[in-house]
């Protein structure tokens, strides 16, 4: 019935690519988030401490951060499709091989280095390159749908791994996930995803060639469409985007690690915290698509600024409200802004700097995100130990989010983004 309805419409091939990349995000983010499911089991099986296992995870976080500009650069040079296919293949094999390991050292190599490194090849830095080439006018929506795959993936794969652990044990759980990803995720990418619409004699956004040039054909050159990515580092918008994304890392990284510890320190039960986190995840998936839709109609920098300020409000509510109200206000307000920064930052990067160096530049912003996250986790833990409360750490969250909000609002989008620059008629290789 649904398919019959869908088949009556004249769909642009780019949407099939968006769906395929949605599934890639679904697999990669879902499986990486599932790591936490096995921590207690590994502690018992290998007789090791949480710290030893967490070391592999934290190494994975940093390796993933540093791999993104590198793999983003390769995507710029050789096409994102090949980088994504190779990365997803190695990630899948490495995930399946985790089922064979017997020590933390094996976990460090397979999860902390190999999986983490190649998951950088299936990140917004590479996926965003393909989406930006297929979409110009609906770039924000397309990017948001792909990113929401990660939220949906964690809502499905993390419980799957948990139940699979209960029923089949941890080795079979990793094996099933790796084989599933290898046999279904990789062929889907190979079959349906193409680097750019020109490969299928199409135009971005599914526009039809006519005498009058379409938006995608206009060959608009932005003032910051540099041939070398290094030149971009000397411009203000790149710093605006990276600094605000650094704050995004601070606030999401700290919550992913300290949210449950804060709830326990405030005498909120784990059951309530679980329900709140579940609500946050659902609102997050809906929120990112909603923001994506809005971003194709309004200035993206304004939405990005609002998203950071709204998240700041969520952090402030934790300090101001009594904890039993704060947890719900945080889940609802914070959830709406959680993932929305990714499609907005990625779209702004390609709008301002063009597509030639998009993988490298967004990879650099992503690296700053990961560094911010790692630093925040250390600070949140240290401040709780020192003062016996998370209030000061959350206050830092509020201050940095206010900063990120204003930094984003000050982006010169109207003068630098191709969305607002009139046709020049000059052929542009960087576009």
């Amino acid at each position: 019935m649904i398919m019959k309805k869908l088949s009556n419409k004249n769909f642009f091939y780019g949407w099939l690519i968006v769906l395929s990349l949605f599934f890639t995000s679904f697999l990669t983010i879902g499986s990486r988030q599932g790591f936490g499911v096995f921590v207690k089991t590994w502690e018992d099986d290998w007789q090791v401490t949480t710290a030893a296992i967490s070391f592999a995870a934290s190494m994975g976080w940093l390796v993933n951060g540093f791999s993104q500009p590198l793999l983003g650069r390769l995507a710029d040079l050789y096409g994102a499709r090949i980088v994504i296919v190779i990365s997803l293949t190695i990630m899948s094999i490495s995930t399946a091989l985790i089922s064979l390991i017997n020590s933390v050292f094996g976990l460090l190599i397979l999860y902390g280095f190999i999986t983490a490194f190649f998951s950088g090849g299936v990140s917004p830095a590479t996926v965003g390159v393909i989406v930006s080439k297929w979409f110009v006018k609906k770039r924000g929506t397309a990017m948001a749908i792909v990113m929401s795959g990660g939220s949906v993936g964690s809502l499905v794969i993390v419980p799957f791994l948990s139940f699979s652990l209960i029923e089949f044990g941890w080795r079979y759980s990793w094996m099933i996930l790796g084989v599933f990803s290898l046999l279904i995720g990789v062929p889907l990418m190979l079959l349906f995803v193409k680097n750019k619409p020109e490969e299928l004699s199409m135009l971005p956004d599914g526009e039809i060639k006519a005498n009058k040039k379409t938006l995608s054909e206009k060959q608009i050159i932005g003032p910051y469409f540099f041939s070398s990515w290094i030149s971009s580092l000397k411009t203000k918008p790149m710093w605006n985007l990276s600094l605000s994304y650094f704050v995004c890392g601070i606030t999401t990284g700290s919550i992913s690690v300290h949210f449950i510890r804060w709830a326990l320190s405030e005498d909120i039960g784990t059951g309530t915290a679980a329900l709140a986190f579940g609500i946050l995840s659902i609102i997050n998936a809906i929120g990112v698509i909603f923001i994506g839709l809005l971003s194709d109609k309004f200035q993206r920098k304004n939405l990005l600024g609002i998203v950071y300020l709204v998240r700041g409000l969520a952090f402030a509510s934790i300090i101001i409200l009594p904890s039993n109200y704060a947890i719900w206000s945080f889940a609802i307000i914070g959830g709406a802004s959680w993932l929305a920064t990714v499609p907005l930052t990625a779209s702004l990067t390609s709008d301002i700097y063009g597509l030639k160096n998009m993988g490298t530049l967004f990879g650099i912003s992503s690296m700053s995100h990961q560094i911010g996250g790692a630093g925040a986790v250390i600070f949140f833990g240290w401040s709780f130990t020192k003062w016996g409360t998370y209030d000061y750490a959350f206050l830092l969250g509020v201050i940095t989010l206010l900063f990120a909000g204003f930094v984003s609002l000050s982006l010169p989008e109207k003068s630098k983004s191709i969305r607002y620059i009139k046709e020049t008629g000059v052929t542009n290789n960087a576009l």
Partner: protein
Amino acid sequence: MPYNYLLHHSESVDPELIEAIIDKIMNVTGFSAFTMIMILIILMVSVPLFIIMFYFTNFKRNN
């Protein structure tokens, strides 16, 4: 020493949180772990199946 806190860091789901979520799901639904696995596998497979059907109904037919 701050380094100790880095050791507690991961981007993955919190082990205590996921344990609480799983307990909650099992209490609310009353399903066994095996039933939940089957439901979740159907969800996982339905995404690529939808993509393949979307391709055949829209693009393969129109070449």
